[in-house]
């Protein structure tokens, strides 16, 4: 079948792009996660200057388009980074942009997860004599993070799709490759459809995996509402 032949022809190039797509996704998600956890705790459980800083950061990132953020990093940052000897490559811009963006959204999702923990439990752990730090580690993190899993896995899937914006800053992920292939071979519809199905496939895969993870780690009695 012609389509199949075409697919086999472009598969290697698509494969390279896919690798970067997945790389941007997972690095963005994981680094974003480790940034988000402490920032979220600061935002929820402290009341000073840093709480406001985190709020400002989250509001700014969530209130502006990712595209604009990537654009600013790739085309704007060199203006002050180049004099410092730092080159802004597409990779640099892509990773930085996706990490900062994902972290902000993860902070917001985790807030929801932590807020689901009744305040009385914090009081209970303090009544037992646990220090604030111990309360965070033993009571808040295990529950808050688990409650956040559905929202965070949603974020992962969103991120996978949004890495396609790397196209705008010439990061060599799937979409960039697709556009080149399409114009090189002058087969637009086929290329984009194939790419669409690749994204759909991975989206589906990720959502199934996260369902499994969520079930395994769920706290008994706290199943999320399933929409039929």
């Amino acid at each position, binding site marked *: 079948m012609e389509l199949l032949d075409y697919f086999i022809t472009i598969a290697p190039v698509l494969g390279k792009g896919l690798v970067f797509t997945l790389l941007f996704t997972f690095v963005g998600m994981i680094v974003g996660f480790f940034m988000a956890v402490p920032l979220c705790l600061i935002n929820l459980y402290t009341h000073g200057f840093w709480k406001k800083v985190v709020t400002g950061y989250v509001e700014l990132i969530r209130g502006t388009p990712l595209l604009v953020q990537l654009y600013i990093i790739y085309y704007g940052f060199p203006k002050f980074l180049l004099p410092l000897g730092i080159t802004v490559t597409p990779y640099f811009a892509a990773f930085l942009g996706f990490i900062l963006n994902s972290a902000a959204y993860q902070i917001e999702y985790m807030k929801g997860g932590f807020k689901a923990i009744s305040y*009385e439990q914090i009081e209970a752990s*303090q*009544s037992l*004599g646990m*220090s604030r730090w*111990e309360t965070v580690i*033993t*009571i808040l993190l295990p*529950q808050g993070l688990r409650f956040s899993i559905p929202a965070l896995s949603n974020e992962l899937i969103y991120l996978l799709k949004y890495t396609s914006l790397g196209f705008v800053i010439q990061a060599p992920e799937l979409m960039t490759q697709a556009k080149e292939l399409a114009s090189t071979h002058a087969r637009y519809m086929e290329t984009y459809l194939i790419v669409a199905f690749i994204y759909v496939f991975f989206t589906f895969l990720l959502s199934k995996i996260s369902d499994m993870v969520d079930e395994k780690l769920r*706290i008994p009695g706290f199943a999320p509402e399933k929409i039929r």
Partner: protein
Amino acid sequence: MDKDTVLTVKDVVKEFGTNRVLDGISFEVKRGEVVVIIGPSGTGKSTLLRCINQLTPPNEGRVWLGDREITDKNTNINQIRQDIGFVFQHFALFNHLTALDNVEVGLYKVKKMSREDARKKAIAELERVGLKDHMEKFPAELSGGQQQRVGIARALAMDPQIMLFDEPTSALDPELTGEVLNVMKDLAKAGMTMVVVSHEIGFARSVGHRMIFMEDGHIVEEGDPEMILRSAKKERTREFLHKITELYGG
């Protein structure tokens, strides 16, 4: 300070904004005494308990546990809290931990016991409240009465000098209050020093040594439960008791 006085509360004031919830509360609790605090909702009874173990620090006033001043800034509050057991209205069990874990966690994390010692003690405490068979269950799998008994076991396991109960049965269905009240009665008979905020007049009558009636942030009247119930000196007390016994029975 009297060696037998476990808890001393002096002139405690607590304000939330312009709302003066506690307006100069003072009382003492001796070892082995069971004090029951009654009063209309929202008069600061829960706040008072939270002022004692500093979950809500008071604006003014001082609190002593034995001869250690809790309100002193230099006191290690986490240490003192180990000696004060607190039981919550909505149980406040840690949802991600089994009943056994809930009771153990204070022992090995705060009291720094070894895991085996902690486990042994936790099992013993759960047995004391009659829940040894349910120890591997999560809070969501337990009824309200069972959850509250785990909450009591968790507080007891720390071997506190005094136990504070914040409306322990108010969130329970009527059939379940009995099992919790029985545990509390046994505790009282065993000589535990207890301060209980509750509407359960029957409990006050059977094991209470003293009853305190609070309203509008003040102590209106205090004394022997039977005396107050039968012939309270203040009009307000009588009014309140009348309402309560209508609702909850004697």
